[in-house]
């Protein structure tokens, strides 16, 4: 890691002062510190995106309006944005997995895992780009989700088992448990949606898929876990920096109301479609 700092520093001096600042921060605080900041930033971005995602999907009740919205999202610029969303998604998932390994499973080869986060993240992003460019893959939704949910369920179960002996609060444990569940589920969700992007943007296809009870259950779990995980994360960041107890309580109320509001909208949509 020390070598990578000096390489990055030499490179950054040539190219950009921002990279120089990153290299300096890595030197004075370490790479996991930078990874932690990146985790927070990507987490906040993804929470905002989830709100937007639920809002967009809420128009599924009117398929014509939904298709009109999706038509806009079909423009190259939005397709690029959609692809770029893979970066925070996969980084947050893999780095979250790294944190769970460190805190819950007592893995202390953290520097090595951090390299894997970068490597696997790059691989996932490249794979997604290939699928998006090909745009012709097809897989049965229940088949895909049975396998993914089974794997995510196993990871979640192992995490729950490990956390039984921890004296930490239930809220904190649920943050890690929801993280373990989402570790596979969210990247898989993104991958599935882009196996055939045209079909993923078609209201009738989505409605038909969501008519399946198993898919409904999966979607409900996803919405609940994502909103809990995101809102606890945001609340936790506020707890770190907001000095006033009143403002911290205000943040708790605000985050809870927003999460419950979007959970209600999301769950209602899943039940009704």
């Amino acid at each position, binding site marked *: 890691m020390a070598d990578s700092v000096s390489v990055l520093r030499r490179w950054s001096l040539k190219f950009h002062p921002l990279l120089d600042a990153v290299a300096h921060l890595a*030197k004075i*605080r370490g790479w996991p510190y930078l990874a932690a900041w990146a985790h927070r930033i990507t987490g906040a971005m993804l929470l905002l995106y989830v709100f937007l995602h639920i809002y967009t999907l809420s128009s599924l009740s009117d398929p014509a309006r939904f298709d009109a919205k999706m038509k806009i999202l079909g423009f190259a610029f939005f397709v690029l944005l959609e692809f770029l969303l893979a970066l925070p998604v996969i980084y947050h998932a893999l780095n979250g997995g790294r944190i769970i390994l460190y805190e819950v499973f007592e893995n202390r080869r953290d520097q090595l895992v951090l390299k894997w986060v970068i490597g696997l993240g790059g691989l996932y992003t490249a794979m997604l780009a290939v699928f998006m460019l090909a745009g012709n893959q097809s897989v049965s939704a229940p088949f895909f989700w049975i396998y993914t949910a089974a794997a995510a369920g196993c990871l979640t179960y192992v995490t729950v088992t*490990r956390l039984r002996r921890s004296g930490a609060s239930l809220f904190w444990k649920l943050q890690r448990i929801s993280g373990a569940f989402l570790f596979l589920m969210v990247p898989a969700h993104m991958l599935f949606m882009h196996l055939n992007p045209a079909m993923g943007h078609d209201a009738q296809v989505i409605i038909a898929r969501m008519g399946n009870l198993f898919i409904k259950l999966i979607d409900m779990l996803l919405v609940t876990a994502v909103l809990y995980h995101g809102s606890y994360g945001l609340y936790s960041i506020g707890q770190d920096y907001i000095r006033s107890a009143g403002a911290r309580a205000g943040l708790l109320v605000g985050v809870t109301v927003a999460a419950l509001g979007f959970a209600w909208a999301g769950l209602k949509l899943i039940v009704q479609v």
Partner: protein
Amino acid sequence: MTTYDLTLKVHRYDPDRDKSWVQTYQLTAGRILRFVDLLRKINDEQDPTLAWGSSCEHGQCGTCSMKINGKPLLACELLVENAVAQFGTTTFTLEPLGVAPVVRDLVIDTEKAYFRLDKVKPYIIRPKAQPGEGKEHLVDPKSLERYVTATRCINCFCCTEACIASHHNFLGPNAMLATIVRLMDDREEEKEERLKCLYSNEGVYRCHSSRACSHVCPKGIDVAHYIALAKAGAF
């Protein structure tokens, strides 16, 4: 003899005028001088009003901890040649730690910094009963091995300064370490109060495993490892 022409930009504060400023000092120094030697040299040769703290100057008391080019460390342990190699420059910015109010220049109110440590009671609250008249407790070497490195903490507050969670609502990594050491110590009977403190809102929930504490610890303690043990419920 190798010498370096150094530029030291020192963050200064005058409490009488409530004024802060950055003062630049130029000096030539030998390669094995420490930063406390540089500050003393400034006092002797350029500016006797520059205030800074030190006590043992052997990396055992934590009095001289400060931020040098943003990194919290002990000024008595940093040699000029190592600093030049580490930061790749001969210009250094010296700032006081932010964990407590500044008294003057590089000196902080350590009593206030220690308030957070006092909250975790860094001593054995309820010792185990003596095994017999005139007999002392024997600590099992295997058990000691699990936490002996953690006992080397000198409370320099470098970890607290570096922590991602800030130091406003977190007691700090060193305070967590102090209570974890006593939880791992067989002689401590009061586990409940310690766990309550550990799992309080100012406790481990403020740790996000950014591991900056371990990165900057001058004693080489893997502080994050011990806090992670607490989260996993090892005690």
